[in-house]
């Protein structure tokens, strides 16, 4: 159960098909472009609230691509924009939420943006209380197991949220019942303003796995391929009925906690600049261009394509109506129609 450090040769020994690499890059760029657009809308006063995946894209895309969309289950958290895009949600879906339109598939604009959910894609609706979803993932995995299916359930949360009792109860239950749960901790070092040192007296979140008897894997969350490999292994383990895995992805939060936060009071500009210098999207682009997976101009075209998609999505979202006031009364119970 020792914490598995990422193999230095991870990149070499992993023959990843160039098309797959390009797809990964496309997903990361798409998420980044969409996320950036949401901030623009916020600054323009057209979106009251934005919370960002910027800096987490590599981890999110790598993990999500190890899953079978619509078959495996997800209980993500508010930063997982890129996860939802990989699984099949669209920029339009999320811009509908950001603009609080009735057609928002996550919640019909009942929840704040970034509270993801989509029955069709087995993305379990999330609320705001952190860590509760870890138990929902365990329950979903239990149901699959009871039916004899080999679907896995991936849940994610921030490192700060591992301090909650539900994290403990969820991983413990999953371990005792050897459930196919993959718990991804996206460790960006902060819970709003509270640094990791004030959340746990351990160096790595992955160490928490040892209290539950499951592997605790640490990956460089800015390395999409490493994240992908870690998830593929955890998913395979789950499908084989060997139980859950905790994966800690070390990432950087490139923005303040949310559009309501000002991080200047609690972290230095140097730190923020340093994070930006290690931006996972830029890093992956460089790697792909060096290795020739991306030809000159490809990256620019991929970004332009994402821009066009987001532009279209925004137009559609803006043209879409707000919910009617009385609809606030619907769907408290199944019989309310």
């Amino acid at each position: 159960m020792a914490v598995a450090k990422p193999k230095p040769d991870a990149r070499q020994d992993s023959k990843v098909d160039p098309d797959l690499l390009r797809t990964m890059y496309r997903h990361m760029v798409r998420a980044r472009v969409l996320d950036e657009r949401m901030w623009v809308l916020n600054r323009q006063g057209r979106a009251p609230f934005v919370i960002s995946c910027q800096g987490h894209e590599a981890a999110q895309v790598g993990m999500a691509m190890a899953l079978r969309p619509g078959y495996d289950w997800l209980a993500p958290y508010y930063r997982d924009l890129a996860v939802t895009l990989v699984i099949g949600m669209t920029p339009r879906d999320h811009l509908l939420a950001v603009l609080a339109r009735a057609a928002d598939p996550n919640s019909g604009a009942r929840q704040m943006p970034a509270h993801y959910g989509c029955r069709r894609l087995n993305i379990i609706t999330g609320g705001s209380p952190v860590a509760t979803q870890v138990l929902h993932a365990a329950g979903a995995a239990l149901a699959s197991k009871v039916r004899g299916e080999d679907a896995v359930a991936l849940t994610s949360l921030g490192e700060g949220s591992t301090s909650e009792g539900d994290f403990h109860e969820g991983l413990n239950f999953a371990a005792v019942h050897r459930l196919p749960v993959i718990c991804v901790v996206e460790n960006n070092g902060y819970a709003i303003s509270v640094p990791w040192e004030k959340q746990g007296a351990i160096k790595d979140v992955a160490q928490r796995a040892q209290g539950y008897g499951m592997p605790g894997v640490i990956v460089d969350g800015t390395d999409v391929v490493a994240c992908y490999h870690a998830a593929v292994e955890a998913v395979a383990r789950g499908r084989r009925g060997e139980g859950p895995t905790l994966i800690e992805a070390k990432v950087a939060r490139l923005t303040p906690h949310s559009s309501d936060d000002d991080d200047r009071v609690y972290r230095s500009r140097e730190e923020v600049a340093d994070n930006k210098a290690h931006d996972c999207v830029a890093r992956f682009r460089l790697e792909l261009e060096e290795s020739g997976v991306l030809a000159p101009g490809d990256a620019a075209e991929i970004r332009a394509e994402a821009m066009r998609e987001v532009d279209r999505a925004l137009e559609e979202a803006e043209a879409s109506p707000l919910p009617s006031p009385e609809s606030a009364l619907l769907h408290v119970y199944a019989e309310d129609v």
Partner: protein
Amino acid sequence: MAVKTYIEAIRDGMRDEMRKDERVIVLGEDVGVKGGVFKATEGLHKEFGEMRVIDTPLAESGIVGVAIGAAINGLRPIAEIQFQDFIMPAVDQIISEAAKIRYRSNNDFGVPMVVRAPFGGGVHGALYHSQSMEAMFCHIPGLKVVVPSTPHDAKGLLRSAIRDPDPVLYFEHKRAYRLIKGEVPEDEYTEPLGRAAVRRSGDDIAIFSYGLMVHFCLEAAEALSRDGFECEVVDLRSLRPLDRQAIVDAAKKCGKVLVVQEANLAVSVASEVAAIVAEECFEYLDAPVRRLGGPEVPAVPFSPPLEEFYMVNPAKVEHALRELAAY
């Protein structure tokens, strides 16, 4: 018809539904080999195996949270909380999650889950094995709350709860488990959620109650009947939603109202019933709406003189009725 105890009816209800629908599972502390601390799940582990009757780790938020996830992924979990007193660690999963999932997903998801828990005092269980904590859940939109008072209803309401597409809290009075017996049909009947039942009719005083207290109310009503006062006894059964119509009808018919519960009164089910009557029956009332319940202390104390002082009993109900009758 077979005569069963209240707890037998609950056990039968679970067994029947598990035989009929393999999506139904039971999970909780000691529900497996031991069959539960009250034996409510006795025999289920043997018949359905440990895949469907699951001894969970000692963690209530975990039990309910896992049940929610399992319900979302197609099962029909019955989560047992060993004592209602110990539901508190699960309140976040019940109120923040289960109750809000349909609403927050705009009807994309639902949580067909039942949470069973024994409540109530008079069993020397002291502060943490005697509480009646239904009130806080009855405030919460998205939840349904049921409390049966007879073996017939225990089985019929449990069937409906298990088949309901939304989360139902099913609270069982632990003192009724073996004390209350009654006829239970063999057939696959159900009792509807959301409907009260008139247990005795009269037109002098309307008594609203639920759980074991219903039986105390009936006893007291008989005593008054000997002096010519006829009480209508309404068993609320469903505490959320309340059967507004049944409450208003009985209150208007009698003009005098007594609400009886075991729990303390402040911000409780009795408060809501009294408020409904005050709002909707104003012109029909011949006396102030009266509430009888436990004292405003944290819970039922252990020592017999203290427990006896705390508990509502038929004599206290009768006393309250006589005061109302004399008004």
